[in-house]
């Protein structure tokens, strides 16, 4: 912290116009790329240090304590919070939910996005309009739009129940049924991210040189084979990109669950990020919440490191 801090202060002083003599004195240093590098990167690093890294370090420290967020004393409890999580049925369920939610949301978004992109890649009229409508949800506030979805899911007044009734199906009681709450939340999540995935897949499809298909055709490849041997490999950087964005989005997806289910019923939609919030700011178990947040941090870091490693390779391949 000290070292970084002094760098930042340095940069400011030297960059400020009134510090001209300093600049002359250090002209040589000012010219070096090192200095410029520091100047360019320091603000970003600084804000991260103060507003992200410090909180997570603090959390790491808190995770070995029991604290209700108010009491002046934070009681040291060793690894008690972690041990609690290790044996807690609710936390196991939370981990499983997080896995279900992530796989469901990422898989659903990517698969449906690809299908829609393939569709909109056809020479159909009005497809630009369709693309705009499909993209729109990704711009919307999750909290605001979830309120609308609650009413759509209502098994009595909701539009979904109405549509199901046309097919002579009775509506599940979505948000109050432990078996249907997760699918409901997943639907909203996928709906919201779908447009972004579609647009990006579409771009990827349009960037594939046509002659690759022609060549494959000449080789006698059927439609499915051409899809497998040309489209899929050519799209792999896109799949990677969307994979990263959607996974990270999903891990931190909070608004939809907070507004629609509050993690319920009976923890059916309680995911890791929600658990962190719930334990911290509803139950005021700062230690337990911190321990859970470190678990989340570690998982995300692991996933990202894997992806970066893989992604770096991808970038070189082009």
């Amino acid at each position, binding site marked *: 912290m000290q070292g970084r801090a002094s760098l930042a202060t340095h940069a400011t002083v030297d960059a400020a116009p009134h510090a001209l003599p300093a600049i002359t004195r250090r002209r040589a240093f000012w010219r070096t790329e090192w200095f410029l590098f520091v100047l360019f990167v320091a603000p*970003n690093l600084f804000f991260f240090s103060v507003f992200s890294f410090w909180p997570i370090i603090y959390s790491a420290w808190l995770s070995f304590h029991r604290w209700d967020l108010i009491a002046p004393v934070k009681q040291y409890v060793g690894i008690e919070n972690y041990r609690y999580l290790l044996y807690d049925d609710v936390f196991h369920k939370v981990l499983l939910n997080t896995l279900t939610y992530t796989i469901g949301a990422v898989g659903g978004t990517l698969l449906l996005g690809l299908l829609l992109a393939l569709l909109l890649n056809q020479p159909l009229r009005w497809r630009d309009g*369709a693309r705009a*409508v499909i993209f729109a949800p990704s711009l919307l506030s999750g909290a605001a739009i979830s309120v609308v979805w609650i009413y759509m899911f209502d098994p009595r007044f909701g539009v979904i129940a109405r549509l199901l009734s046309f097919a002579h199906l009775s509506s599940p009681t979505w948000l109050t049924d432990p078996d249907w709450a997760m699918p409901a939340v997943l639907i909203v999540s996928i709906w919201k991210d779908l447009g972004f995935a579609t647009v990006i897949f579409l771009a990827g499809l349009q960037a594939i040189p046509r002659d690759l298909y022609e060549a494959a055709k000449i080789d006698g490849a059927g439609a499915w084979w051409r899809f497998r041997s040309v489209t899929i490999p050519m799209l792999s950087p896109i799949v990677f990109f969307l994979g990263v964005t959607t996974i990270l989005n999903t891990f931190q997806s909070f608004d939809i669950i907070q507004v629609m289910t509050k993690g319920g019923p009976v923890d059916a939609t309680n995911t890791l990020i929600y658990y962190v919030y719930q334990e911290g700011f509803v139950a005021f178990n700062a230690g337990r919440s911190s321990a859970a947040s470190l678990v989340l941090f570690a998982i995300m870091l692991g996933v990202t490191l894997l992806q970066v490693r893989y992604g770096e390779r991808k970038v070189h391949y082009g």
Partner: protein
Amino acid sequence: MVEVSVLAAPRGAGRGISWPRVAGYAAMALAVIVVGMPLFWMLSGSLKTTQEVFSFPPAWLPASPRWSNYADAWQAAPFGRFYVNSLIIMIAGTAIKMANAICTAYALVFLRFPGKNLIFLVILAGLMVPEQVTILPNYVTLSDVFGQSWINTYQGIILPGAAIAFGTFLLRQTFRGLPREVIEAAKLDGCNHLRLLWDMVIPMSRASVVTVTLLVAVSKWNEYLWPLVITTTEQMRPLTVGLTYLVNRESNTQWGQVMAATVFVIVPLLIVFAFAQKLVIEGVTAGATKG
């Protein structure tokens, strides 16, 4: 669907009615209806009375549109002020984040420095810290900045989100994909780094910069939890927080008004999108596929 796609006849082939094309239009119409339904439901709900919102079976459209929901919602809380705050937060917040993203990405790609990759990883790690974890420590940090409280100030709302990892990551990808020779040539011509960044790198990566700007701006506009926590008076609150002024858990919530206020929140983004659609989609596209 796959079948249809790969058969993708070049433009104009087969003017007559063909089965795949009919299926294509049907699928497209279905997709638009399904995806657009919540938007429709929100608009129709915003014109309904509370009774109509809770009518059974649900009515597609209100018997007579109740435009007063909009006026009532607007008057229920200072929405004009909320708009101003949302705009300030979005513009200032996006500007700082973008400056950070561009500078950091530039430094990571074009400037020599020992241990660059490590620094990149440190920045990426910033992406992994969930907002929920940062709330309390950041509140405490901001309560005493040089003896001043930044709680309930614009800088208090904006600065904790000033750092950026994802945008840095994306721009770094793009910058790395720029033709090296052009950059090197400019350097040899005596072009300094600031000029290089401003006159060459940014224009050449315009699409990606637009994308990241869009993503950042949208997320700024939609921020809820932090602005709720850090603001204490309605003069400082953005629209997303303002929405809660209409929801009463304990009694009479006018759902028509809530829907109308939801429209307030999302319409600016939809309008901007409608006008800038081409640019936005091109930007998003280029950002993702480059590199």
